[in-house]
């Protein structure tokens, strides 16, 4: 048969009542008093870390500026090539518009030669 929920589950609170939990906590806190590192160690590590952080940030800045220079160089080169092509196309399109196509030119010449 089905058991009632209170029978099916173990209630942990029964094993360690709240006042005992608090008592254990106080006992643990009493013995685990904080242990501090020596001042020499703290100062030395602090100095080393700050230096390391400075080096790391400088290296990162150098990397970023180098990446920007490369990007600028490549991007500038690409822009020049694309710009050159665009200008060439524009110039030659104007030429094509100004100069009539061959069949048109032949028709114009024939019209000029024929008497009628």
């Amino acid at each position, binding site marked *: 048969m089905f058991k009632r929920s209170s029978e099916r589950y173990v209630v*942990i609170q029964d094993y360690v009542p709240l006042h005992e939990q608090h008592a254990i906590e106080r006992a*643990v806190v009493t013995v*685990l008093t904080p*242990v501090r590192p020596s001042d020499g160690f703290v100062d030395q590590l602090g100095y080393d870390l700050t230096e390391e952080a400075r080096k790391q*940030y400088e290296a990162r800045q150098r990397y970023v500026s180098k990446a920007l220079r490369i990007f600028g160089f490549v991007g500038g080169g690409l822009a020049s090539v694309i710009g050159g092509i665009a200008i060439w196309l524009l110039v030659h399109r104007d030429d094509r518009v100004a100069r009539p196509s061959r069949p048109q030119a032949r028709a114009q010449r024939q019209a000029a030669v024929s008497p009628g």
Partner: protein
Amino acid sequence: MNNEEERHLVTRAKVDPEAFGELYRRYVDRIYNYHYRHTSSRVEAEDLTSRTFYRALRSLEGYKETGAPFQAWLFRIAHNLVVNWYRDSTSHPTVSIDIDDPLPLPSAMPNPESWLTAAETRRALVKVIESLPEERKTLIILKFVERMSNVEIGEVMGKTEGAIKALYHRTLISLKKIMREGSADVQAVE
């Protein structure tokens, strides 16, 4: 320092070495204490503390605020190093307890505070805690010494809040049995 100020400090620390130094000064004692409680050695604690902060410095750029406070992130780094230390070290304290004198405990569950009246029994409790498995010791330190919530402890240990609650109660039951029986064998109550 409240959470908002700390968040600003962490953001600044990503680009400012002085801000990282400030974070370091804020946490160095607690991280050292955490490592010392696991290793029982000042040398090991210093080594693990410096490795924790160097690793934090390297990873800080990728740190993202996800709701958990910065301390949980930092303690997670410390916790991972401690786990590696337990795995790698052959010199860390073993799980079995070696207490020279039997504990003068009454047969009924004593008041744990009165149980600690003698210095010997205090030392014995320290040994009991030191001899707990790594996971339980971490929980005890984070819960009682660092006063972290179950959610934060879960962030540090990579577990759910429910798993932390269950582990907490198992640890309490285990400690209670040891204190009641004055047994020197932790494994007997596991």
